[in-house]
Every structure is written in C-alpha cells, then in structure tokens.
C-alpha cells in the first residue's frame, strides 16, 4: 500500500493548520536545542580560555574574582602581592614558567596588561603572528582583535578610558610613556585577543613603581635583581600535576592564595548547570504542552475527517491504510518539525554565541551535539507515539456512522 499521495493531499488541503502545528513544534524543539547547545558552548568556551592557566597565585581574597580577572580580564581591584612572593616562587622547583600580570591600564576600552615574555609566548610555545615580541620597555604586542597596526603608538590611561581615546575626568593618561606596537599575537579565542600586552616594567614605570633594575639597565624581564612593583596575579605553569599540587599547597594560606582556575570553573559550572536544568525543564514543559496541543488539533482534524475516513473504508481501504494515513501524516509533520527545530536551534545558538563571545571575550563555538540530537529524537518519538492515539481512533471508527454523519 502507499498512503503517501493521500497524505500529501491531506496536508495540502489543511496547510494553514499543518503549517501552524509544524511551526509551534519546531519552535518548542528549537528552544530545547538552544538551551542545551548554549550551555555547552559557554562551558567549553570558558574552559578553553582557562586552558593555559594551570595555577594562579594572588593575594588573599575571592578565588572567583582572581580567576575572573586573571583569565577573563574582568575589571576589578584585586589586592596586590609584594615582590617577595615572586622571589619565593623563583626559588621553587617544578615551575615550567611563571609570569606576573598587572592590570588597570586601558587603551580605548581595551585592557593593557603588564607581563613578561614568558606569558606572551606561554613559555616559548607561541610566537607572534606578525612582527616580533617586545624587547624594550616602550614596546608592546597586541592581541588579534586589537585595531592597532604594527608601528602604531599607544598612550595608555589609568583606569577605564572612553573608546575615542580621550580620558574620562579623574583618570590619568600616561603621557610620556608611549608604547610602540611591535607584534601581533595569533588568535586564541580568549579575552586576551582584545588585550595589549606590554612589558610589566613599562606599567610599573608609568605608575612610578620600582622596575627591578637600575635606571641605566634597559633590559626587561626576570630575574629582577632589585625591588619591583606589586602584582595582583602570578600565572604558573607547573612541570607536572604533582608539582602543581605542591606549588598550590606552598602558596595557599597566609600572605597568598593559590587557585586552580579549573576548580573554580567547576563550581561556576555547577551553578550554570542548575540554571540549565531549570531552563531545560521549562523547554521540556513547553514541548510537552505543544505536543499535547498538537494531539488535540490532530484529534479535532481527524473527527472533522470522519466522513472521509469512512468513505476510504467503504471503497475498500484496509484499516492499516487508514491508520497509516493519519499516523504517518502526523509523523511527517513531527519529523519535519524536529529537523527544522534543530536548524532553528543551531541558528539561535550561533547568534547567541556571537553576542556572548563579544560580551565575554572568549569564543563560543555554536555546535549541535549528541545531547541535542537525542532530545530532538526523543521529542520526535514521543510525537509519533502520541499520534498513535488519533490514528487508532480513526482505525476503530464505524464506517456506517462516518458515512451518515459529517
């Protein structure tokens, strides 16, 4: 038997209703898909941004804030550590590389971070995409998203500056401490793509702090023979997992705290998972409501078609044929809605990810994963199962009554 020509005709005949059912089902599925895909994109994007940060050392305070500022460059006034912490770390074994970070300066809204060559190259693993690394305290390299050409001069400001480059009232421009852009780093998909990386000595000097060397010594970078300015964050790459735990233990408590960003993220993801659970439950409830409404509509439609069904039976259609016409018709709608829902969910996730990437600074990859497919397949299977009810009703209806009524 082949019920499809008749199914096609029925769908064409009631296309406004069929289209409406298709649209609400697709929308409900898209909502579910978006919630799941967006949560994963957020989790993976933020985790990837923290990949290079094994261990953060900071002055005692909020661990979460240390991660948010050190990894995601969220503006905040972190407490500072004296240079003795750096000296102590420099004496330790098991450190592949370590670098202090200082924040607070900006250029047209973009953060200027004072650090060392080790951080910029991640201990030699990354090289500039264009130009070279900074080699003097008036040079800087920029992240891939900073609109500065190599050779451009930058006058940074203390605190937040306006996008047009003019200082806000009460904020100081570091005149006389111009930086020259000498290199551009490749894209990382992290907030550091928006940052200008300057030698830490340049930032210390601009703030009138000790730069670790006598004035006549123009070299930059550690080791620093003399006193230096303070730093809020030290990034540490440990030689091994055991070293990482040992270092964390050594710098935890007392004057410093040591944090695995991954651990802090796990806590944040816990909160995120709760939000996701609530939203996923809402999306599921929406889907359930939608499918029940679809069922009611299909039922109403099937009762309106009682006479057509009776005629089919009268001219000899087997029950299976009548069942297939009703059931496969709904299944077709459900499957089309599921596919459209996946597509719409992907588009929504891509849009939201683009917006959130802009907002958070790290890359969110919009992707439809197995969870989304599973949820959509589940919705499609449930829809197909629910459609058995009106199909069975059509199957059982009396031909004589159907021919008389309607």
């Amino acid at each position, binding site marked *: *038997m*082949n019920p499809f*020509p008749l199914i096609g005709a029925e769908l064409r005949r009631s296309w406004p209703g069929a289209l409406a059912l298709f649209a609400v089902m697709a929308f409900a599925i898209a909502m579910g898909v978006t919630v799941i895909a967006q949560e994963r994109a957020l989790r993976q994007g933020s985790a990837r941004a923290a990949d290079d940060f094994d261990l953060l050392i900071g002055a005692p305070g909020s661990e979460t804030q240390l991660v948010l500022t050190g990894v995601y460059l969220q503006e905040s006034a972190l407490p500072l550590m004296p240079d003795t912490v750096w000296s102590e770390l420099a004496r330790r074994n098991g450190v592949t590389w370590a670098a202090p970070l200082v924040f607070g300066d900006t250029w047209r809204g973009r953060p200027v971070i004072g650090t060392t060559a080790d951080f910029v190259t991640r201990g030699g693993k990354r090289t500039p995409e264009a130009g070279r690394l900074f080699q003097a305290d008036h040079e800087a390299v920029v992240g891939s998203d900073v609109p500065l050409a190599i050779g451009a001069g930058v006058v940074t400001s203390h605190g937040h500056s306006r996008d047009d480059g003019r200082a806000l009232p009460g904020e100081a421009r570091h005149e006389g401490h111009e930086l020259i852009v000498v290199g551009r780093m490749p894209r990382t998909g992290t907030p550091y793509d928006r940052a200008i990386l300057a030698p830490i000595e340049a930032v210390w000097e601009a703030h009138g702090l000790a730069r670790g060397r006598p004035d006549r010594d123009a070299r930059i970078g550690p080791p620093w023979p003399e006193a230096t300015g303070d730093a809020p964050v030290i990034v540490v790459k440990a030689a091994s997992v055991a070293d990482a735990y040992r270092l964390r233990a050594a710098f935890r408590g007392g004057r410093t705290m040591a944090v695995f960003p991954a651990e802090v993220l796990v806590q944040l993801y816990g909160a995120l998972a709760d939000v996701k659970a609530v939203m996923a439950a809402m999306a599921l409830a929406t889907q359930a409501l939608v499918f029940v409404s679809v069922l009611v509509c299909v039922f109403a439609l099937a009762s309106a078609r009682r006479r*057509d069904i009776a005629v089919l039976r*009268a*001219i*000899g259609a*087997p029950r299976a*044929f009548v069942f297939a016409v009703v059931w496969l018709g709904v299944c077709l709608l459900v499957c089309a809605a599921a596919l459209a829902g996946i597509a719409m969910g992907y588009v929504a996730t891509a849009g939201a990810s683009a917006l959130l990437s802009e907002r958070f600074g790290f890359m969110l990859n919009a992707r439809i994963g197995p969870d989304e497919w599973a949820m959509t397949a589940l919705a499609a299977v449930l829809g197909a199962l629910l459609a058995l009810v009106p199909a069975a009703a059509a199957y059982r209806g009396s031909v004589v009554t159907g021919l008389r009524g309607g």
Partner: protein
Amino acid sequence: MPISASSEAPPLTVHDLRLVYGRGRDATTVLDVPALSIAAGAQLSVSGPSGSGKTSLLHVLTGIERPTTGLICWGSVDLATLGEGARDAWRRRNVGLVFQDFHLAPQLSALENVLLPLRFDHWRLGAAQRDRAQDLLDAVGLAEPKRRAGVLSRGEQQRVAIARALIRDPRILAADEPTASLDAENRAVVADLLLAAARRSGATLLVVTHDAALLGRLGSVIRIANGSVAPVEAAA
C-alpha cells in the same frame, strides 16, 4: 491483485436478513428482508421513501454493515459471517461504490483519485495501471485528468467517482443516489455511464435512487418501506 477483466459476477441470495439497532425494548428493526435473490449481472434499483432503509440495505449487501441475523450469500461467500476486516477485503475485491456526494479527495488530481483504490495494496503503480485509469477517465468523458478533483464541476466529479469505482473491475457496482445532486443533463450522463459500465463488464448493478428516469432504465426494482422488503427475484 488482478486489474484486468474480472470473473463473472456472483449471484446474491439473502435469507431472513434482519438489521436491528438497540436492544430489548429500545430495539428498532431497520431492515427486514425475508428473501431476496439477484441473478449474476442483474441491474436493479432500490426504491422507497426517505428513511425507509434504502441506504442501510445497500450497506448490508456490500458488507459495510453486518446484519443482526440472516444470510447474505454472494456466490459462496456469506457476508453475515465475515468479520469487519474480511468484509473490507471482500468489498475491495468485489465492489465498486459511487456516492451521492462523490467523496473524492479534493487535492488529488482526477487521475490520482481513480488510482487511489489501487494504492490500498500497491506501493508503486505500473504503466498498465495508469493506462487503465486513463482509459476509464476517457470512457467517462473527462478531458483533463491532471486537474484537481476539488475544482471540477459536480458532473465531472461524479464521472471521476464512477471511474474510481471501476478501477478494480468490480463484480458488483453499487451506487447510493448517484444522480441526486446533479442537474438534469448530468443525471442522464451519469445514468448512461453506470448502465454502460455494468453492461460492459457484466457486473451486478445495484442503485439506490428515487430518480424516476434512472428507475425506468433499470430492470427490476426492490421496493422498500419501513425496512421491509417484499420478496424479490431479479433476473439478469
């Protein structure tokens, strides 16, 4: 399933047929047919006032409805003993039905409407089957087989319905008021087509009608009043 010329129509023998709705004191006798016998290939009409049970009789004789008691033997098959699925299958193989209001699928083309009964047991239709449907549409005089049934005139729709009834070469052609919703000109055409089709294939033709012109052209009349049918013997 053969679609070429069918074998000879079976004769019909009815005994003590009763169709009763409801039970006990609420029971209503809808049909009471002590005896009815129709020769193979006979052409006859069922006539009587509205509500007399004409359509019920047609339903019972074509296996759409099962009688409460009695015997309905088309050849060796007693419809009264068959379950619903078996009666559907029997009807599919043996009966072509035409309704007062055509009951075509409005979104399907005339040709697809004619082919629909073949789709009940075929996934793909062959060229021979399509040619046969086209021939039937030619025979009923429908010029545009690709047009949607919903946009055809009433007369055209009934012609398509007749072609649909004939596509499986039924041995019994049954029509319920086939001319009642048509104008005079189309009434005559539809009557011609039904009679000619039955004559050509040798099918038994059963027509419920109160159309005097059509009544006059059919061999015998089963008169029905209040569900009671006087004993009839109709010859071919």
